[in-house]
């Protein structure tokens, strides 16, 4: 698809990166609620051996804050198998993703801030638990501009209104042009998912074209009769032109029917339970391919206890795994076969992991102190695993990567120094990583 570039003066003009750029775009697959690392990618034989043993746990929540209490360890509910040449362990939850481990880079010593979903989800997206900060995607837009003027440069697919809601894709104090565009809401059937107020081409009747021409003619007259020059007035005309182009481009990108049956099948489209998420993943690829800088694919809902949040009934993880495993694997395979994985950074993960000990008999609590995410493509070493949690999978101990570090690394791959990418607001310079963050150079090619 032909990308329209912005005039150099525009806030959205493509800007050259500060550092060598290893990735041009990001696809973030957000697993809302906190998938359990000890049941998926973090294989802990010791946890299996000590199933049912008690450990002393210091509370981090209201009511138990700072108090020690015994908790019962619970072994993973699923068997682990080694995959690929790298021999990465993956549980029965993700057999399809397992086939791609040689392309993936697992960060197994992740840790983050916040204990509840709201704070941690905001931290994941904005690097702060409570303050009003711009989202990672907005920082990328601010730093790099957009590659395609016919589409927004930062899109989040079917995001949740809960746990921070729009603040997770908000531009915060950055100029509004950098805000994320939500396409659809959670639970919307995929065929109704669209950019707000973009009408499908089908209704692009002579009528709407005539109305559009009339409006632009009137606007030109209104500018001409002024004696001064005001950029904002020209920007109005330009914004209508862009809107018109967006209106013609977006429906084509959003329409998955031009994809072959094989491609659709790769993502699990047309079969259950993968149909919905498969379509999201395929749209993610199409948007990314069309020059959308940051695409977030959300596996999310509107509950205060979202998706992967199994405080009880851990077996329900299987439902979520079945809905997402094949689509994610399909996306990885598709990106690779199209050569897009080279310069697309894929990130899969939740806002935190889950505890190795049980809660409510067969559930697990939130665990921000140790969990796993994986990256792929975008100049990250394939087929490796970096960092680890302790022997039961509770606390990250080696190769620790804080969420700030992951943010710094993502910016770095896109060609930006997280300490230099600053914005002056309310009298001081702000960064995505605040005063923290370290690029995890060990995992980079």
């Amino acid at each position: 698809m032909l990308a329209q570039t912005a005039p150099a003066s525009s806030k959205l003009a493509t800007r050259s990166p500060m550092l060598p750029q290893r990735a041009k775009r990001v696809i973030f697959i957000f697993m809302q609620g906190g998938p359990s690392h000890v049941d998926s990618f973090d294989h802990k034989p010791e946890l299996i051996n000590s199933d049912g043993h008690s450990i002393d746990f210091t509370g981090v929540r209201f009511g138990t804050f700072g108090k020690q209490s015994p908790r019962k360890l619970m072994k993973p509910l699923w068997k682990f198998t080694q995959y690929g040449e790298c021999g990465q362990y993956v549980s029965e939850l993700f057999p399809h993703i397992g086939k791609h481990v040689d392309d993936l880079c697992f960060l197994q010593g992740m840790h983050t801030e916040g204990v509840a979903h709201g704070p941690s989800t905001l931290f994941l997206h904005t690097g702060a638990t409570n303050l009003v900060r711009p989202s990672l995607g907005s920082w990328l837009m601010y730093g790099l501009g957009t590659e395609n003027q016919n589409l927004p440069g930062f899109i989040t697919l079917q995001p949740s209104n809960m746990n921070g809601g729009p603040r997770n894709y908000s531009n915060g104090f950055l100029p509004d042009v950098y805000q994320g565009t939500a396409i659809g809401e959670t639970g919307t059937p995929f065929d109704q998912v669209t950019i707000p107020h973009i009408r499908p081409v089908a209704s692009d009747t002579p009528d709407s074209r005539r109305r559009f021409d009339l409006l632009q003619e009137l606007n030109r007259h209104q500018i001409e009769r002024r004696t001064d020059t005001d950029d904002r007035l020209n920007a109005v005309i330009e914004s209508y032109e862009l809107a018109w182009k967006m209106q013609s481009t977006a429906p084509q990108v959003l329409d998955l029917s031009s994809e072959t049956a094989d491609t659709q099948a790769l993502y699990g489209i047309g079969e259950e339970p993968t149909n919905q998420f498969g379509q999201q993943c395929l749209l993610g690829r199409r948007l990314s391919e069309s020059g959308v800088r940051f695409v977030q694919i959300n596996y999310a809902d509107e509950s205060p206890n979202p998706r992967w949040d199994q405080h009880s009934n851990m077996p329900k993880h299987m439902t979520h795994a079945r809905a997402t495993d094949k689509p994610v694997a399909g996306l990885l395979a598709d990106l690779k076969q199209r050569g897009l994985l080279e310069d697309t950074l894929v990130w899969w993960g939740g806002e935190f992991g889950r505890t190795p000990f049980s809660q409510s008999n067969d559930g697990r609590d939130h665990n921000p102190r140790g969990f796993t995410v994986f990256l792929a493509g975008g100049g990250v070493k394939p087929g490796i695993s970096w960092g680890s949690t302790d022997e039961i999978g509770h606390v990250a101990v080696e190769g620790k990567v804080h969420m700030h570090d992951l943010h710094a690394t993502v910016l770095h791959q896109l060609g930006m120094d997280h300490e230099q990418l600053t914005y002056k607001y309310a009298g001081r310079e702000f960064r995505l990583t605040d005063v923290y963050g370290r690029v995890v150079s060990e995992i980079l090619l």
Partner: protein
Amino acid sequence: DERVEFFEKKIRPVLVEHCYECHAVGAKKIRGGLLLDSRETSRTGGDSGPAVVPGKPDESLLLSALRHDAFEMPPDRKLPTTVIRDFESWIRNGAVDPREGVVARTENKMDLLQDRSFWSFQPIHAPVIPTVESEWPETPVDRFLAAHHAALNVKVAGDASADQVLRRLHFALIGLPPRPEDIRQFRGAWAQNDFQAITDLADQLMLSPRFGERWGRHWLDVARFAESSGGGRSLMFPNAWRFRDYVIQSFNDDKPFDVFIREQIAGDLLPYESADQFNEQACGSAYLALGPTNYELQDKELLRMEVIDEQIDTIGRTFLGLTIGCARCHDHKFDPIPTSEYYALAGIFRSTQSLVPGNVSSHVKTPLRSDTHARAFSAWQKRSKDLNAEINELKQRTGLAELPKKGGVDPTTLPGIVIDDANAVFEGQWTSSSSLQPYVGAGYRHDNNDKSGKRAQFEARVPRSGEYDVGLAHNYQSGRCQGVAVSVKHADGTTQVFVDQRRAPADKLFSPLGRYRFDTDSVAVVTIDAEQSKNGHIIVDAVQFLDVAKSPAQITDDERTGLLARLSELQKELGEHNETKPEPLVTMSVVDQDQPADWHIHIRGGVRNLGPEVARGFLSVASPLTDHAGLALPVEIPEAASGRRELADWIASPDNPLTARVYVNRVWQHLIGEGLVRTPDNFGKMGTRPTNPELLDFLASTFITEDRWSTKSLIRRIVTSRVFRLASDVSSADDPENGNLTRAFRRQLDAEALRDSLLQISGQLDLNTIGGRTISKVTQYDGTYDHSTGSTNLRSVYVPYLRNAMLEPLSIFDTANPNVVTGRRTQTVLPGQALYLMNSPFVRDQANHAATVFLARQADDDRDTISMIEDAWLLVLGRAPTESEVRTMTPLLESAASGQPAWTDVFQTLFGSIDFRFVE
């Protein structure tokens, strides 16, 4: 020396390699104030205390950090155990360290007198009004500008047209466009005397309730008002509308601004003479509770400090134009606000309760005082009680009593005499339980299938001699005793019966024990004897005596039908009655803590990293000095007070150099387009300097002395000035930012004005709803709020303002970000706005309505297209069309397919046009 050698070999290289990056002079950034590049600084340590205590490994923070105890250093990984052991033995052996001296480093100390010389901290003095040789000035305001222009030798633009000034004044004062009749009237007045026309119209508009709606919205922007918390779980604030209405009313009443300040910061603490005054002030104090708060943060100490920080920072920006929040972790880098003064303020807010603790915490609610409400509520309560009593009685009589789904049956709701197990006498070990429903009272007892020595005895005295049906309440299950021995002592002796507890009781609760005669003068006794019972668990719950003369069996079928009809009537009435429950009148608020106290500095802002305690107080740089120049007057806070009232007084004082300047600048900005200080929320060093400081001080000083903090007087002073009347359509090449104010600013319609204008022009604007709760459905969280369920034609200021569910046109057209103080909105021109104006059903609907109303008015006349175009232009753009505009529109309107659809297109086109979206 071996020990020096040990240091050089084992210690220094590790320090250099792993620590100096952040802890040595020359580091890009020194972390935690700690320098490990000299002996002395290693020993004094950083913000958290001594890093190295010779001979005492356990007191040396350095070692603790290496072990990843107190800190985790280096942050990315733990050093090998052997290295940590080296440090331990080095410290134990006296931490010999040959690194003499301190590496030189510059310190910046604050100097109060020096700091006060910055323009915004200097006292406000009334400047002399310049005399100028020019016809141009209309008011003193103009004379300041004229002098400025003369000094720079710049030329001022001509006046705008009457139509332009009218549209400007309408949007500035009431946020709505002038209607065609307003335009005709104003043109006439302007032709006679332009100054008088503006003065009269300004006064008239300021008397309209629309004025408070417009100016209230400006204040809501800086008060970061919203009706939900916006945190992770964005909790609705169902009573925040009271603050919104309070603000709007305050502007309509022209409440003196100093009073307005006091009510918002300390409204809950101010004296009052009436319930209304109490309520008004309490509603004002909601200001402190409206912030964006992540109430679900689990670290509640952190949450508390986050809320306090938000309050301090918001107050700073709102009233003082200072970013005090920057001093939370370190002395302010640019403005003279030391961390100690941040925590002097924090002490005031720690002495204030803003949070109600919980897993998900909440805000403080204060009941409002209203006799009418109290009366209405007690009348409602009484009616509820009566209805329920009658319904219960009917249910008993018709045998329709239902068992509760949860918990026990209240014995007082049961007919006859009911004695619960709680009032029975038990012998032997019985176990209390409530696991199985139904049961009477709080639970029941069972014998654990152990019969020895267990008895239970129920005693009662009947109110009337006669026959009674006696029953035993128990739940049933397999494994229960099939022959529970129960004896009943009655007027004619004692009878023993056996109850099967594997079967359901006959009337859900009670199994019949038989009909007996009882006298008023002897005690009726029912005894359960476990030892005489069969095997299996025995349940003892309650015993009932039913007067046979009053039992339901006595009513006929006809009577029963009648009673049932009455019952259903009453139930319907109860349902309706419950809908009318007078909701408790509460406002969001804060209250003082029981034991107000000073608080500690938090070192580097760490929640648990407490430094020395500091006395509560305000900012020295903006406080009066003592006689010994260089020291701020000490702050006096009465014992048992938080200091919030004193803080409010300090801010609202005529001597505060910032408050009046910041406020008059805000008002100027809303009227003129840009502030005299372009950064309205930042009057510190990182803010911009005033373009015309004398004018700012003139406005600030007259605002305090002459206007007595009256906003309306201040507005009148500005809009009647000639500067308000300047043309905007003037070349800007010489002074693109218009720093010299030689012309007017062309302004983009803000979100609220845009939406309200559409609704007014379409005839749909609801001007009858003035305040009240507009959230149509109060739910716990705001995320899924559906704006289409409420009234959709409200003025925008009344539309539910939800942090995570903002009404679409408001967010698309850049309404304030309610998470921060927004003194100046960012205004964008984006394709998303274009799409909204081109394609949204809302805009199309308004265009359609506008066309309908417009054509209905034309119905009688057979008017030509051109004069109809002229009318439409007047209605939407407030001016006559140009020739080229008429030429553009005529073909559409004169085509065969004209009429309603064509006029809908015309209106929608006008709504999207530049001259509608901008104000000259």
